[in-house]
């Protein structure tokens, strides 16, 4: 039972990772960076793993850390889905 979601909006991604990662702060505040939310390196790896699984694409912890916020992550997910994902 893969959790497959096709909508890569910032809200959907925030919902998805919020359900998957206990104790994660809400990513949605407008303009907040992952740094502002005190997202550490292990959590970026968790976010990357959840997003990769859910959208069937490859997102690395480095991607998450360097994008820096939810809007950036949403754009990357859109691009990777458009590029075909990994099936």
């Amino acid at each position, binding site marked *: *039972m893969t*959790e497959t979601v096709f909508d890569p909006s910032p809200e959907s991604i925030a919902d998805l990772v919020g359900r998957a*990662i206990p104790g994660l702060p809400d990513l949605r505040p407008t303009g907040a960076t992952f740094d502002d939310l005190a997202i550490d390196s*292990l959590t970026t*790896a968790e976010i990357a*793993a*959840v997003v990769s*699984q859910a959208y069937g694409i490859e997102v690395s*912890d480095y991607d998450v850390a360097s994008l820096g916020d939810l809007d950036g992550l949403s754009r990357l997910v859109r691009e990777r889905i458009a590029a075909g994902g990994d099936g």
Partner: protein
Amino acid sequence: MSSRDRPGAAVLRGVGGYLPPRVVTNDDLAALVDTSDEWIRTRTGIRERRFADQGSATSDLAVEAGRRALASAGEPDVDLVVVATSTPDRSCPATAPLVASRLGLGTAAAFDLAAVCSGFVYALAQASAAVLAGLHRRALVIGADQFTSIVDPRDRATSILFGDGAGAVVVDGGDPDEAGSLGAFHLGSDGSAHDLITVPAGGSRVPHREVVDASDAYFRMDGRAVFGAAVGAMSSSSRRALALSGWSVEDVDWFVAHQANERILRLVAHSLGIASEKVVIHLDRAGNTSAASIPLALAAHARTFAPHERILLTAFGGGTTWGAATATWPRLVVQDL
């Protein structure tokens, strides 16, 4: 032997685990390296682990776990011993013949299997296949690792994660409907990620005589890259094993994954749709015991499981390697750890 004589399933007949007595808490480690109990607990779920005494070797742990698994199985004859380990007593020869001999198993076939933290699932698969093929009648499968022998105690990234221990099961042929029957296995590897989990020196690539940087003789891991790879591989391998068994996710009573990091386990369970109360956690008491972690978790939770309950096993480790298996819990008595 004709195919009609061959068993319909490999079946678990005994389970045993052994942890060395010396308990090392997070606070104990915080006195040695820059870390804290809170940091370790929130990032890994580990509260304490066991360290083998100086002078102990992996075979010592393996013999004790093997003895307990054989007792749990009623002291049967065994004609195959597989020791899954990446910390053998010596780089040559294998540890398994010594373990077989010390357990009084005569001239049983014995070999080591190196798949790091996936070693137990790999070894269980090979032993099951050997029993099903009629090559061996009964196997003792041991996952044993003394990671304190390869971890740098001053490296706070790895020294907090690992503990020493061993776990073992006895497998022979039986019926697919029996309690303890093993269902399907799925195994995989990706050697392009060879460097993610490694002891760089001491093998043929960098022999001891050519070691320049002493830290190359210690275990090394790219933790963040491993995190993502482990979640992906264990999730997909578990799905494959479930599909091969004809089980749905709802059929799974217990999820016993390699005990590396509670956050990885919970994420894999979430991705599979397995309820969190079905996730078996033993790493809080033992840390990451590499190839030993799954049979140790089985032994530690033996009183929780009921005969015929359905268990999904999965692991990810250096290589990289991964695997998953389905099994039902046997009807047997397991000695407390």
